[in-house]
């Protein structure tokens, strides 16, 4: 039997799922642009703004549902989780925009191979995490969500490893060094937000409050 | 549209029928009252109300002793009949889950329909044969007539008190008997009073049972084991007599009886009036 709140919940859910896909696209576009040295800035910027708009709409919708329907239990947990998740998706967009801004300095096309390789590896991993976060949200798959914890640790160690190598190799301060340092920082933050999303998914599905980092 | 017009006509027709029925019901009441007042009013004077029953040929006379007698008989009967009727009514209403209850109700209904002359003969057998024609015997018979009326009306009145009132009292920690006495009875007192009134009116007007338990008497009260005059009986005796002054007395007595009953009604109504 469908309840009064169900229509609103479905609308909110499709908003959040749409946002997830959009966020993934934004991050993917931006990282690609940086690595290949192509200009993706305008597109990423408009996508990021769209994400912010949807996040606002989603928040309004959630509050409307709370005010009108006094949801409890699983309904309430879904709303709480969605509000956190939309924030995290918006952060994806924000960091993607930051990367695109840095990419305007020149991107990785002219940089050393090992730098390009490291960044590429890390980007693939992080993009995978973004993908996983969106997928596990859609299917409420807590196992996928928990797996993000492991990947996040890997990203963390990749992050520190890269910084160490930079210090070791001590190349002259140039475009590649500065931009890559900033970009790996953004990548690490995107990975963090993916785990936050994972935590919210687990709470939504089981009511358990966990830390995945 | 045509449907509506037909409905209106039917409605008006029914209304008229109902009003006619009402009139037909009221006509006997008012004509009797009117006749009693008209024919009896001329008899009412101080003498009439203070003199005892006259003998054959005696002029004047009154209904004083008959009034005394009726009041006595009805009063005595109430002393017996009201408590028994009340208790039975309370039993039937408040303790209806006991096994005895359907039997009590059945017998009460049977007694209610008993011809009053038969009850009178019963009274004759029990009391008159041992003590003689007396006020006691009449009161006894009248009480028996009274009991089922009081029982039934008490039960109905008590049933009208909503169950929530009883529940509230019990939840307050009031024992059941106290609930009944303090809360339920006071909620039903108007109905109960009306019931008692009805029964008083009924027995004040009974002549047949009085005849076989007390007989015709024209003197004042002389003891419970002796008879006394009685208004209803007097009306009967005087009305079928060939003497004109007795017939006039009959009408006067009828007026007095009706006024007496009316008086009791008014008094009871005043006392059980709701404060709100």
């Amino acid at each position, binding site marked *: *039997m469908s*309840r*009064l*709140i169900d229509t609103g919940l479905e609308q909110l859910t499709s908003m959040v799922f749409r946002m997830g896909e959009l966020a993934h696209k934004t991050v993917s576009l931006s990282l690609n642009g940086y690595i290949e040295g192509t200009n993706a800035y305008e597109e990423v910027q408009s996508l990021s703004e769209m994400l912010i708009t949807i996040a606002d709409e989603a928040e309004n919708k959630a509050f409307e549902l709370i005010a009108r329907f*006094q*949801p*409890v*239990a*699983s*309904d*309430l*947990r879904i709303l709480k989780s969605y509000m956190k998740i939309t924030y995290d998706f918006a952060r994806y967009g924000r960091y993607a925009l930051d990367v695109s801004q840095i990419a305007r300095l020149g991107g990785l096309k002219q940089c050393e191979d090992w730098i390009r390789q490291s960044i590429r590896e890390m980007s693939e991993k992080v993009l995978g995490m973004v993908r996983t976060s969106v997928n596990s949200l859609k299917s409420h798959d807590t196992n996928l969500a928990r797996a993000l914890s492991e990947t996040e640790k890997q990203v963390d160690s990749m992050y520190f490893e890269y910084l160490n190598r930079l210090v070791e190799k001590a190349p002259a301060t140039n475009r590649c060094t500065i931009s890559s340092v900033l970009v790996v920082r953004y990548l690490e933050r995107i990975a963090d937000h993916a785990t936050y999303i994972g935590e919210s998914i687990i709470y939504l599905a089981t*009511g358990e409050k966990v830390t995945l980092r | 549209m045509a449907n509506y017009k037909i409905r209106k006509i039917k409605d008006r027709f029914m209304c008229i029928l109902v009003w006619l029925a009402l009139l037909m019901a009221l006509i006997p009441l008012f004509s009797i009252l009117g006749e009693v007042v008209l024919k009896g009013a001329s008899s009412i004077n101080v003498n009439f109300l203070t003199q005892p029953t006259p003998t054959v040929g005696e002029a004047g006379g009154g209904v004083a002793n008959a009034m005394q007698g009726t009041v006595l008989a009805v009063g005595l009967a109430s002393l017996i009949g009201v408590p028994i009727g009340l208790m039975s009514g309370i039993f039937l209403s408040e303790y209806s*889950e006991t096994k005895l209850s359907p039997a009590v109700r059945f017998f009460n209904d049977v007694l209610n329909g008993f011809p009053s002359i038969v009850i009178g003969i019963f009274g004759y057998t029990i009391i008159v044969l041992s003590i003689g024609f007396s006020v006691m015997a009449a009161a006894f018979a009248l009480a028996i007539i009274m009991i089922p009326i009081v029982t039934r009306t008490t039960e109905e009145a008590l049933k009208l008190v*909503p169950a*929530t*009132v009883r*529940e*509230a*009292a*019990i*939840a*307050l*920690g*009031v*024992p059941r008997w*106290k609930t009944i006495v*303090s*809360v339920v009875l*006071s*909620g039903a*007192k108007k109905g109960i009073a009306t019931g008692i009134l009805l029964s008083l009116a009924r027995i004040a007007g009974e002549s047949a049972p009085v005849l076989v338990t007390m007989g015709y008497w024209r003197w004042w009260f002389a003891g419970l084991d002796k008879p006394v005059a009685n208004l209803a009986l007097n009306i009967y005796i005087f009305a079928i007599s060939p003497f004109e002054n007795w017939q006039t007395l009959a009408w006067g007595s009828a007026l007095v009886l009706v006024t007496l009953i009316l008086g009791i009604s008014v008094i009871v109504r005043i006392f059980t009036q*709701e*404060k*709100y």
Partner: protein
Amino acid sequence: MFSPYKFEIESLNAWFGSKHVLKNINMKIKEKAVTAVIGPSGCGKTTFIRCLNRMHEIVPGAKVSGRVLFNGIDIYNEDVDPVQIRRKMGMVFQKPNPFPMMSIYDNVAAGLKLNGIKDKEKLDSVVERSLKLAILWDEVKDDLNKSGASLSGGQQQRLCIARALAVEPEVMLMDEPCSALDPIATAKIETLIRMLAEDYTVVIVTHNMQQAARVSDFTAFLYLGELIEFGPTKEIFENPKSELTEKYITGEFG
């Protein structure tokens, strides 16, 4: 014997004739807290609360088994007088039921008067105290001799609460007290219930889940006569342990 529990209910079963209405209920009710009992119609919640003050058994054909420990003593023990038990627990019903022939004053004083207390001063002070507790004093203090039935629905219900409080019970049992009232009257009574919880143990039956969520510290969910779940209200409404509870409170059935 000190126990934080006002009631300890053990293996409580109740019947209406052959109909088994309450099935093996085990519950501990904390004192000076509000415990709500929720569940769909016919789940036995009214029967349950009426078993706590031995009101269930006055219905012909009703039967109870099990133990209900009140202050550590089983109220269904043979030696226990049900009338004394009921004096310790005030009860408020779904439809306000002030005594119809009595004034406001008499209604509140009824419990005391019927127990033989006649001292006018004592009655006056108890009536005032009870009406103040029930947040009704200011509205009626100028005319306590008005009929109880002349008040509005919400006022009548508060009058019934005052009447129950006048005999100084330890527990207040409330059977859907706001069902017949409008939202504003309901809100007043809910505020009153929270205030009462400071000094009394309150058990409230309600079919309105939001009310249970607003007003209670603990919630019990009954379904078809069985206790499905019992716990702190916050937990029940955020993350219930039983799926049946979850389905009921999110409105999927009932």
